[in-house]
């Protein structure tokens, strides 16, 4: 009993470090992509360690195997969904031409990557217009322009 407590306590402590570090990184990091990097730590590392600790507790201390199985399922689902969501956010931000911050005033993004994604984004937005009446279409173009405008400033 004591051994399980110690082991799960260590797991939970390490997971707490990951979660707290990710949260602090989300506040302190200078631009979007570095923040994304910090937040992904929470989604995978912190969740993995904390949930392993909780699974140990549920299985051996609380004697509740159903909860342990559900927690394991949570790990599996989140390991599929969290990186997918992070990747989708990063790709959407790249297609919206959010440039990483850097020191020389030049974009750090690799030129080939930038051209690859931004060109594809323009093509796609031309092809995939909303399938709706014309006024909605003009509204769509307007909202695209507005979103680019909005990406630069904040909307307080």
């Amino acid at each position, binding site marked *: 009993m004591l051994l399980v407590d110690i082991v799960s306590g260590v797991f939970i402590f390490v997971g707490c470090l990951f979660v707290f570090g990710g949260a602090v990184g989300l506040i302190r990091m200078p631009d979007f992509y570095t923040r994304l990097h910090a937040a992904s730590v929470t989604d995978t590392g912190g969740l993995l360690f904390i949930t392993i600790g909780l699974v140990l507790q549920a299985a051996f201390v609380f*004697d*509740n195997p159903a909860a342990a199985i559900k927690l394991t399922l949570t790990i599996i689902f989140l390991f599929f969904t969290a990186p997918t969501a992070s990747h989708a956010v990063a790709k959407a931000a790249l297609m919206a031409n959010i440039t990483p911050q850097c020191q020389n005033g030049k974009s750090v993004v690799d030129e080939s990557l930038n051209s690859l994604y931004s060109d594809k984004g323009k093509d796609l937005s031309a092809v995939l217009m909303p399938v709706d009446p014309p*006024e909605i279409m003009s509204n769509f173009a307007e909202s695209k322009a507005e979103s680019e405008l909005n990406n630069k400033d904040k909307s307080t």
Partner: protein
Amino acid sequence: MVEWLALYNDWAVIVIMMAGFYIMIARYNLVKKIIGLSIFQTGIFYFYVGLGKVENGTAPIFLEPKVIDDSTTNIAAGAVEQTIIYSNPLPHVLILTAIVVGVATMALGLALIVRIYEKYGSIEEDDIQAIDNKFICQLDDKK
């Protein structure tokens, strides 16, 4: 519990409700108004569910006594010998109904907003009123 903290939850709930109320009466955007309505609703949900909370109680799902191990260091240790206290289930049922009805109301309101946008080309309340006034003036001129 400290005396003045015993009512803190009710006060917080009232502040949440008033935030939703302020959005509803001070913002002209109709979608924003719907969001404010849902915030007001959730404030009322917290109020009801908070009334049903009982100290020391757990969720109103009957426990097998062997579920809780005596030797754990968790909070509910030693609860096996005593009678288990459950929270009041009645507010939960009422709020369960209210949440679903609230979403149905919200969907209907949003559908109305889409229709309004198709007719008026705007979802701002003052724009819509201006268009209405212009229309009424034209009618009066015809008479």
